[in-house]
């Protein structure tokens, strides 16, 4: 029983991380139809910058914020400087973003080296506690991570469903041409949303570096997980990203614990099943 609870909690932790990484990826795809293959690199950049900030200032909150902002800036630059020039040509954008991802990974390897980093935790998040009712001990940082993902999800939902800028984003997801015809500078909106997606990725990077660790390769790991999550959950839907992350995170952990030989298979079995039965993803809208 204790094993099951711990595995479930581990699955939820992983799901929270996957959701943070995939929500920005999904947001960008939903609005611009851009498959941003540099999303993992943005996440790793956020993680490294966050680590360096915490290393210097000792403030974990500042590290999360700084990592998020650095990745937001990098994301805005990627869209404004490169991908924006090929808007509407999705295949070229995808290839260009792969190039950007490789360049960023090499630059980060040059600056931060090949070491594995773990962000130092503030005292409140270090250690663990015995959970009431469940009766198992669990790391504080992992619990905080779940709360952080939940809060981020709710904030994103509020931004998109309830605010004026959110209405613009939803309108753009529905019909980009019409939004342009209403007088909206669609190019600038794309840059803003890319920055928002980068921000989410960067913060996820710092949180991942705190709860787990980051090293060269983390970028590809989270890019792959984001792809799987949005394929399962549905491209462009925040709810879909949450559901997809939950399924993939839990499947991965249950697989590792109960059928270690076939652990990896479960994730992709889910993906194959979804693609076969509901190719637009569980909560995705079918293309018209």
């Amino acid at each position, binding site marked *: 029983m204790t094993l099951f609870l711990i595995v479930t909690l581990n699955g939820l932790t992983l799901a929270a991380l996957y959701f943070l990484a995939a929500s920005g990826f999904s947001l960008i795809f939903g609005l611009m139809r851009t498959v941003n293959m540099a999303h993992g690199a943005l996440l790793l950049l956020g993680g490294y910058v966050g680590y360096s900030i915490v290393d210097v200032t000792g403030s974990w909150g500042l590290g999360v914020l700084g990592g998020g902002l650095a990745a937001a800036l990098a994301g805005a630059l990627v869209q404004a400087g490169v991908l924006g020039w090929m808007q509407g040509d999705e295949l070229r954008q995808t290839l260009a973003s792969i190039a950007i991802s490789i360049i960023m990974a090499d630059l980060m390897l040059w600056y931060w080296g090949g070491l594995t980093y773990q962000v130092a935790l503030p005292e409140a998040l270090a250690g663990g506690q015995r959970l009431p009712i469940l009766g198992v001990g669990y790391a504080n940082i992992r619990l905080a991570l779940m709360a952080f993902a939940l809060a981020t999800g709710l904030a994103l939902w509020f*931004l998109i469903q*309830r*605010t*004026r*800028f*959110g*209405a*613009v984003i*939803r*309108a753009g*997801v*529905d*019909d980009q*041409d*019409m*939004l*342009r*015809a*209403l*007088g*909206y*500078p669609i190019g600038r909106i794309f840059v*803003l949303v890319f920055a928002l997606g980068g921000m989410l990725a960067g913060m996820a990077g710092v949180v991942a570096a705190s709860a787990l660790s980051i090293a060269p390769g983390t970028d590809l790991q989270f890019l792959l997980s984001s792809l799987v999550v949005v394929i399962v959950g549905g491209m462009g839907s925040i709810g879909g990203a949450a559901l997809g992350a939950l399924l993939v995170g839990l499947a991965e952990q249950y697989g590792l614990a109960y059928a270690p030989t076939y652990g990896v298979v479960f994730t992709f079995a889910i993906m194959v099943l979804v693609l076969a039965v509901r190719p637009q993803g569980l909560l995705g809208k079918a293309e018209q």
Partner: protein
Amino acid sequence: MPISQTHTNANALEVRGIGKRFGGFWAVQDINLTVQPGERRAILGPNGAGKTSLFNVLTGDTPATAGTISLFGTNVTREPINKRIQRGVRRTYQHAHLFNGLTVRETLFLAVAGVRGGWRQVLPLRHNDARLTEAERLAEVAGVTDVLEREVSELSHGQRRQLEIGIALAEDPKILLLDEPAAGLSPAERPKLSALLMALPKDVTVVLIEHDMEIALQTSESVSVLYNGRLLAEGSPKDIMQNEEVHRVYIGGAHGH
């Protein structure tokens, strides 16, 4: 005759030698049009005559290959779509372009905010806001007040067409380009739309593509006929009805649609 009326103001729309080429094909060629402020002009022509291509060039959706476009005396040929919107150009599309996931209220709010600005605000929509008041006024003009909270995807075809006109009326339009606003409407829905078109403010210039002759003649005071991308005839509805060439290419062949 509205066309020969003399106005001291500049023309609402002046098109000189406009052409649009796609590869080796001229969708429209050598079009000249003069539309006075407040005029109601219908553009007729069989399918493939170039009516929508002409609209796309007028609004800035696609750049012109040749010629010049002036709005109220200003040359706007090279201006992007959002600049022309600031000058008061609004359009609707032949196939309704609407945001299916938004409510009618949100849609009209975006139409107002697109011109007036303020859409960057990360604030809740339900807030004392002059733009929302304006959105509600537009809903009333377009006759969609009773479905204000409804999602656009749930509207009937007629309501969608009315909403489109509501969007086009946001923030004092000066010239409305309506691309077959009655297309796909049931006979029962047509009179409602016709009445809505007739009730448009008199100072708004309206250019209308319409297949439905009845609506076109009812709502317009002058008619331009396009055929194979070129201007075939121009005149009052009566003149056009009696023009033999027009009869041959359009009215005679239009019954197939």
